[in-house]
């Protein structure tokens, strides 16, 4: 058994000989800075991988369908590719799946506390808002204005 002091010297020598890994630091920082889109890219990659497996389609066949190189498809399924909308829609078409969904536009209007019957049914803004209030189960009626239960 070596003495503690000698041990420390040996450990010191080991650290002195080691090569600083600056590349990992750069990569880790990049991953932290780009975390949000990387998460989306990864989820797309996973869906593509599971679909390929389920349908028995190879990455090469997918590449042919999309008109891109197999190397590019391989980059996509690793989950670190910053995908364009064009690429995503190509993937969706080739695999016959939906990968992303953009929520429909919802018209927002100032809420006026008036009975439904008073609202001009041709005014889409009011109608949409009232429908949303109704569906969410949250009342914006003033207690006194609330329609009485039959």
């Amino acid at each position, binding site marked *: *058994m*070596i003495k503690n002091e*000698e*041990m*420390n010297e*040996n*450990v010191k*020598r*080991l*650290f002195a*000989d*080691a*090569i*600083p*890994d600056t*590349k*990992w*630091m750069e*990569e*880790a*920082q990049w*991953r*932290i800075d780009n*975390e949000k889109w990387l998460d989306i890219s*990864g*989820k797309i*990659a*996973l869906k593509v*991988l*599971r679909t390929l*497996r389920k349908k028995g389609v190879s990455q090469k066949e997918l590449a042919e369908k999309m008109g891109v190189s197999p190397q590019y498809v*391989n980059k996509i*399924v*690793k*989950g*670190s590719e910053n995908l364009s909308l064009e690429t995503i829609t190509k993937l969706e078409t080739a695999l016959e799946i939906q990968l992303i969904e953009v929520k429909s536009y919802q018209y927002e209007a100032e809420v006026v506390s008036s009975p439904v019957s008073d609202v001009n049914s041709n005014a889409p803004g009011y109608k949409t808002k009232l429908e949303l209030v109704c569906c969410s189960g949250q009342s914006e009626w003033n207690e006194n204005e609330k329609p009485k239960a039959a």
Partner: protein
Amino acid sequence: MKILSIFEIVKNSLLAVQFDHKEENEFRHLFNLWKDYEFLESFFEDNLIDLNSGFYEETEIENAVLLTIDDAKKTEKRIFELATKGQTNTDEVLQNIFKPLISDSFDITLERQKAYGLRKKSWLRIYAIRISPNRFVITGGAIKLTKTMNDREHLIKELEKLEIAKKYLKENYLIEESDFYYSDIIRSE
């Protein structure tokens, strides 16, 4: 399999070996692998029986991949914080991240996990040799879905890598065998 070089990950505290058949050191290799969806999907598909053997809570492959990515990300951030701020400027020390490997193979670990809930512990493992308090040399890592390391090829390989590194440090830096012990990494909360 031989050691080509040793890299310093965290100044004066964390080292990682590079084997002659790899293009990068074991630490970088692990984190590149654990963010690779293609590798992870394929790994869990190949080890589906182990995944649902009951050692961990049963889960779908998709979920297993996402859990792994999340665990790896959190672990990398913890080590990154240490690397950027240094051990003295954070509440974190390597000793908190690494735990003795030996307990991983005993029933007591499973009991402890059960008490805390099975997903409290990650299946990610970073294998290292402790050379002095808060100083470690990483030799590899794995996704460990079984109770012990002795019956799965990819885990046996990790034990071999630990032995090679131990021998290398002993021969080149005169660090006695009694000064080592193996460690693994626990789930980051």
